[in-house]
C-alpha cells in the first residue's frame, strides 16, 4: 500500500475542516460547559471569606475538572460511531483509518490538554474578579490585595512545585494513558462507551492485582528480578520505569484503537 493512502497532509486538512464544520456546535457546547463548570465551582469555592484560593486551593478543582471533563471528552470521541446511521456516513468519507485516528487524537487529547489550562485560567479568574467586585466581602488575595482582578494568582508552576520532575512526567503520561484508554473504548463500544470502558479496565485491573496477589501471597513466588528491582533502583529510575510502562501501554491502546477503526463495520 502506498504511504499516500495511509497519510496525506492535504487530505488530513480536508478531513479536519469537514469534522470541524460538522461538529463545531458540540465542540462549542462542550467547552462552554467546561467554562461554566469552572466558573460556577470557583464562585462556590471562594464564597467563604476564608477561602484559600490564592494559595493552591484552586489545584483540586483544576485536577478534578481536568480528569472528569477529559475522560468525558475522550470517552465520547468518534461521535459518529454512537449511531449506526452516522457510522455509515462517517466511514464513507474518503480518508484513511490513520487520518481519522490522528484527527480525533489531536482534537480530543492534545488540544484538550493544551486548551484546558487556558480555559481554567480565564474562567476561574473571571469568577474571582466578579466575586471581588461584589461589595459584601472579598476573596483573600495575598498577592494583589482585595480588589485586584487576580489573573496572577493562578500559577501553574504550583502544579509541579512539590513534585519530583520524573514523577510529573510519569503522571502526565499516566493522564494521557487514561484518556487514550477512554478513547479506545469510544472506538470499540457504540453505546455507553465510557461506562463500558471503565468496567472492562476495572475488571482487567482487578484480574492483574488478583494474579499478582495469588503469585506473591498464596504461592509465595518471588522472581529474582523483583528482588533486584525492589532494592537496587533509585526513585528517579522508578519514575522512568513507570513512565516507560505507561508510554508502552498508551501506544498499545492507540494501536488497538487503530485496528478497531480499520475493522469497523456499518451493519
Amino acid at each position: 500500500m502506498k504511504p499516500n493512502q495511509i497519510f496525506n497532509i492535504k487530505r488530513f486538512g480536508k478531513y479536519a475542516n469537514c469534522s470541524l464544520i460538522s461538529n463545531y456546535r458540540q465542540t462549542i457546547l462542550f467547552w462552554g460547559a467546561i467554562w461554566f463548570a469552572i466558573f460556577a465551582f470557583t464562585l462556590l469555592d471562594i464564597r467563604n471569606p476564608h477561602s484559600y484560593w490564592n494559595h493552591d486551593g484552586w489545584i483540586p478543582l483544576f485536577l478534578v475538572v481536568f480528569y472528569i471533563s477529559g475522560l468525558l471528552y475522550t470517552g465520547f470521541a468518534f461521535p459518529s460511531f454512537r449511531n449506526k446511521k452516522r457510522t455509515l456516513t462517517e466511514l464513507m468519507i474518503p480518508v484513511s483509518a490513520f487520518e481519522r485516528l490522528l484527527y480525533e487524537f489531536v482534537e480530543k487529547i492534545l488540544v484538550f490538554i493544551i486548551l484546558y489550562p487556558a480555559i481554567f485560567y480565564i474562567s476561574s479568574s473571571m469568577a474571582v474578579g466578579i466575586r471581588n467586585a461584589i461589595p459584601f466581602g472579598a476573596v483573600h488575595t495575598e498577592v494583589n490585595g482585595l480588589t485586584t482582578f487576580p489573573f496572577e494568582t493562578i500559577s501553574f508552576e504550583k502544579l509541579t512545585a512539590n513534585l519530583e520532575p520524573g514523577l510529573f512526567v510519569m503522571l502526565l503520561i499516566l493522564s494521557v494513558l487514561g484518556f487514550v484508554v477512554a478513547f479506545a473504548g469510544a472506538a470499540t463500544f457504540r453505546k455507553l462507551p465510557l461506562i463500558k470502558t471503565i468496567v472492562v479496565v476495572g475488571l482487567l485491573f482487578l484480574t492483574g492485582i488478583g494474579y499478582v496477589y495469588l503469585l506473591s501471597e498464596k504461592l509465595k513466588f518471588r522472581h529474582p528480578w523483583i528482588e533486584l528491582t525492589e532494592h537496587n533502583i533509585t526513585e528517579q529510575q522508578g519514575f522512568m520505569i513507570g513512565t516507560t510502562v505507561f508510554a508502552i501501554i498508551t501506544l498499545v491502546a492507540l494501536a488497538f484503537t487503530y485496528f478497531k477503526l480499520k475493522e469497523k463495520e456499518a451493519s
Partner: protein
Amino acid sequence: MIEITNLNFKYGKQANLFDGLSLSEKAGNIVGLLGKNGAGKSTLLKLMTGMLTAPKASIEIMGETPFDRLPRFLKEVYFVPEEYELPASKIGEFVKAHAHFYPRFDSEKLYQILIDFELNTKNSLSKLSYGQRKKFMIAFALSTNCKLLIFDEPTNGLDIPSKAIFRKVVAASLGEDQLVVISTHQVKDVENLIDTLLILDCGQIKMHRTIWDIAEKYAFITVSQLSEGETLYSEVAPGGYKVIKEAQAASTTIDMELLFNAVVNGVNLK
C-alpha cells in the same frame, strides 16, 4: 467494475444470506437491483462499498478490495443508504465540508439539481423532511461524479413529481465511465430508468440481464383468456390476465413488476 466471486455471508448465527453469489458488472450502466424485503439488497450494497466484510469472498470494485477502505477507492464511490443521519448544518455548510473530497465534484450540477428538487443551500439539513433530505443526498451523490454511485431505496419518501425528477436527473447526468446501482423494491419507480436488471432472491442472483435482452425475448401482454402452452407466467389483472410469453414479433413494454413476480415465483425464464 464490479467483480464478486463466491460470496457467502450471514449475520451472526443467522442462516446464510448469500450462498456462493457471483456477479460481474461493467461501467456505463444503470443497474436496478430488485428483491423482496430481507433478500439482502442493502447488505450486498454495503459489501460493495466496504461497509461490511465477507473475509472468504473475493469482492473487487474498480480493482480494489472495498473493505480496505482506501481513500483512492472511497473518493470514487458514493453510497446513499436508505436511512442516514446528516449533521445539523446547512446544505451549504455540508457541501463546503464534503465536496472537496471528490475530485470531479461539479458544483453547477449540484445547484441545478437542487433547483429541480426545489431545495436551497440555506436550508438547514436538520429542518428538512425525510424526503427533502433524500433529495439533497441524491443531488450531492450525482454531483460527486463518482465512478460508482449506489442508491439504496432512493425513491422511498419522495413525492410523485420528485420521483420523475429523480429518473430524469439520474439518466441525464451520467457519464460512460460511471456505474449506477439502484436498489429498490418499488419496481415501478425505476421503470424506464435502468438498463440492466438484477433480481436477488434466496441468496442468489435469479436474473441478471439487460433490458434490451429481456424485451427481445419476452412479450408482456394482457389477455382476456389464458391459452395453454404459450404462457410462461400469468397473473390475474382487471379484465383478464397479465401474461409473459416468448416474444415473437415487435417488442412490448416490459412490465417490471410482472417480470419480478415471475422470477421470485421460480419461473425459469431462460
